[in-house]
């Protein structure tokens, strides 16, 4: 399970650059990144190597942030493995809120971040443990 940092950014020129520079200046490494956007604003979601440090410097610089618990999943890098994973969740009535890819820790694997309901996280982790082809990303 990962702690994902979500950052509220107005849809204004330079906001993304600002926040990335801030993280870079503080030696924070980004391992996964996605932007969910609307017409007026975006939510930048990051998996970083040092969540506490990122949280602190972002808050100090007046960014509106949120920390969310998400799953880091690794599957076989072959056709059908994504379907198998999502189907597994579906059979257990676990809904996928959103997902995005990230750097896998092992060659031949695909990795992605999945957000499910907060109260379904433990259950999801149990299900994955029992699966041979699916594992969680080592942090």
């Amino acid at each position: 399970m990962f702690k994902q940092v979500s950052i509220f950014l107005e849809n204004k020129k330079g906001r993304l650059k600002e926040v990335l520079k801030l993280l870079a200046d503080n030696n924070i490494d980004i391992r996964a990144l996605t932007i969910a956007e609307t017409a007026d604003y975006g939510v930048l979601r990051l998996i970083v190597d040092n969540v506490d440090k990122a949280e602190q410097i972002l808050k100090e610089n007046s960014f509106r942030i949120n920390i969310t618990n998400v799953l880091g999943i690794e599957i076989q890098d072959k056709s059908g493995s994504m379907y198998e994973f999502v189907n597994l969740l579906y059979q257990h009535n676990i809904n996928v809120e959103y997902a995005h890819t990230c750097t896998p820790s092992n060659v031949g694997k695909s990795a992605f971040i999945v957000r499910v309901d907060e109260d379904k996280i433990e259950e999801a982790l149990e299900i994955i443990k029992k699966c041979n082809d699916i594992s969680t990303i080592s942090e």
Partner: protein
Amino acid sequence: MYWNEAKECMERNELQALQLERLKQMVTKIYHNVPFYRDAFQKLGVEPEDIKSLDDLSKLPFTTKQDLRDNYPYGLFATPMSQIVRLHASSGTTGKPTVVGYTRNDITTWSEIVARSMACGGADHNSVIQISYGYGLFTGGLGAHYGAERLGSSVIPMSGGNTEKQIMLMKDFGATTLACTPSYAIYLAEAMEEMGVGLEEISLKTGIFGAEPWSESMRAQIEKKLNIKAYDIYGLSEVMGPGVSMECECQNGMHIWEDHFIPEIIDPITLEPLPYGEKGELVFTTITKEGLPLLRYRTKDISMLTAERCKCGRTHVRMQRVSGRTDDMLIIRGVNVFPSQVESVLLEIGEVEPHYQLIVTRNGNLDELEILVELSEKSFSDKISILESLEKRIMNRISSVLGISAKIRFVEPKTIPRSQGKAVRVIDKRNI
């Protein structure tokens, strides 16, 4: 706690008799000493002798801010300059400021009504009062200062700005009472959080806030953030300064000190006086001021009066908190809109910070209203659907309360300029 029980709890018929006596003296004085008023009386065909009852007040001419401007700087003073010991000026939106002058007796009267007001808010000679209103030409700082000193409290003359120092001294000096604008109170509370100063480190018990309109929800926010009781004080330089009226512990309207001021509510269009209980423009007649006595001064503040007996025991009439100004009012697509309405909606919904701004533009022939709102820490959800639902809730509520629809735009923290004085709530980009 009463500062002047005899006056504050005077029976109404005695109070009104006192008002009439003082009004007659004031009217006679201005008639003979201020050419502007003599001309105005003569134009209306009235004379000081025509004032036989308080109702006769409605026969007399009004005074407006424009009259003060037209007679800049000293044209409306009723005493020679040699007797004026203090000058103050309020900010003008255009060009020259409006000037007010005080005799030594006026300063004493002013100190007395502010002392009375602060005592009404629970302060006494043991209080340590931090005054964060600006000191200078603005009547806020010095007005509060002289009153607090008269009360016998220990006064910290902080003035505005230098927030870090304000908080350090608030802590170290053991300030029990804070006097500043409500906007600045929120600013201080936020700064304290950022500095990591906890509420247990300060001794504040009360706040006496004024100089700008603020909503009940803003009060609740301040009381929560600072863990104090927050009272509303009202005044304007032309009439005296802060201390014209003050809330009591009932927190249900501000007592106007009627031994010094006669209030009226008028219809701002027809200029007819309105009965108690009806909303309209607040008008004051000063009956004890010597330097610049004003007759029926139109404040442009919107309020309502009630003479219902107050549980605190004070008999002076109460005014409702100022809900806006006749000139703050915006007309958007033909509908009257007040920034304070937006404030109460936002704070009622509760998931946004009390930092907002109205941007009014015109697109072709159609007025458009956009409301910028800063997301609070707890309302920022990672899920876009939650943000969108919050946006929609605010939009619906605004539409229902204001009568027009507005676009809601969430902005990042600190985007909306913070104010240490009165907050700028409206940016009107239309060229009307």
